[in-house]
């Protein structure tokens, strides 16, 4: 019972990822996704879907196809450069107990 127009509409509506700023002072955080015909519709739908109870003061929507991601594996060599640099952490340095405020 699917019409041609329906098939076209379905194919044409891209997926958007939704990011919400919960309140001033916080980052936008990814909350989910939705389909919309364009950015404006994505914003209003995101408002209705993800902020029905004052969960946000600001929303970003981004076409999912515009997001570039690293590979998901925890053993990803992409993150190797930071793996062996223990000296970037404050606990690397031994300071005698009698030195105050450090």
């Amino acid at each position, binding site marked *: 019972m699917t019409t041609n127009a329906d098939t*076209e509409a379905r194919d044409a509506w891209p997926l958007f990822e939704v990011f919400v700023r919960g309140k001033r002072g916080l980052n936008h955080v990814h909350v989910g996704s939705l389909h919309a015909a364009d950015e404006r519709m994505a914003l209003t739908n995101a408002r209705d879907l993800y902020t029905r109870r004052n969960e946000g003061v600001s929303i970003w929507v981004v076409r999912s196809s515009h997001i570039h991601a690293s590979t998901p594996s925890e053993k990803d060599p992409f993150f190797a450069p930071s793996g062996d640099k223990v000296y970037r952490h404050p606990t690397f340095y031994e300071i005698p107990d009698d030195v105050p405020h450090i």
Partner: protein
Amino acid sequence: MVHTGGVAERTVGRELVAVHAQQQQFDETIARDQRIEPRDWMPDGYRSTLVRQIAQHAHSEIIGMQPEGEWITRAPSLRRKAILYAKVQDEAGHGLYLYSAAETLGADRADLTLRLIEGRQKYSSIFNYPTPTFADVGVIGWFVDGAAICNQVPLCRCSYGPYARAMVRICKEESFHQRQGYELLLTMMRGTEAQRRMVQGAVDRWWWPSLMMFGPPDGDSPNSVRSMAWKIKRHSNDELRQRFVDMTVPQAQRLGVTLPDPELRWNGERGRHDFGTPDWSELQRVISGDGPCNEERIARRRAAHQEGAWVREAATAYAAKQAARQGERQKQEVAA
């Protein structure tokens, strides 16, 4: 020829080793109680089990708008109308969170909708029962949303990240659903004798179907073991059903209604309630399509989808036109 075969065998061998390593990493992630995320490798069975479960869950939310939605225009006060409207809107929202989670596994949302309206995917049997009185709205909030909370709270710790995160949002909202239902019933119980009878009637109608929401008894639930090993499911059907009974009995006493089960009584030894056995043949009938409202629910969903086709078409045309105009403007700016 022999040589070519050898290369092929070595290739297959390497792939097997790779899959084995991925399987091991998957198992370790589950064992450490960490979450599987969308782009991680996962066994085909894990993926298909999740797609089926999340899709059924999403469909249940969407179909679940109907039994109560019928009362929006007939709600007894503006206050009740606003509450009911917000609740039904939440159900739509829950459906969309879940479709969104299913899509992270590679499912296509439009395809899931088609599967629902063509009867190829199921939804919770509970939504195939009718709502003849306004008291049914209250009892749905109290029982059905209460049962949903029992089911869904453990799903917040489900091993699949997007599903677990959707459940956290849903559980927060579900609490309002249960409380508005119970408050509605408290109000009716303070009313006339006819209203109290109406509440008891709705309790009698919904009690057993609500117990069936947790699915067949553990012995007849073949997929449960695997789902629990994968930490998709955290507790067995019977355990969740027991929790729901223990939670609901004191609420029923406070409300002043009788739960329609002569075998229901406190068992001091177990520290839990004993209760009767639901009519499992009824659950089978309703699941296989022969419930009181199955056809009506699917017909309504199908009609809504078809009647909305022109809206989707118009929005697509508008978006295309706006994009074309913006493209023109940019070209002119470049030329200028």
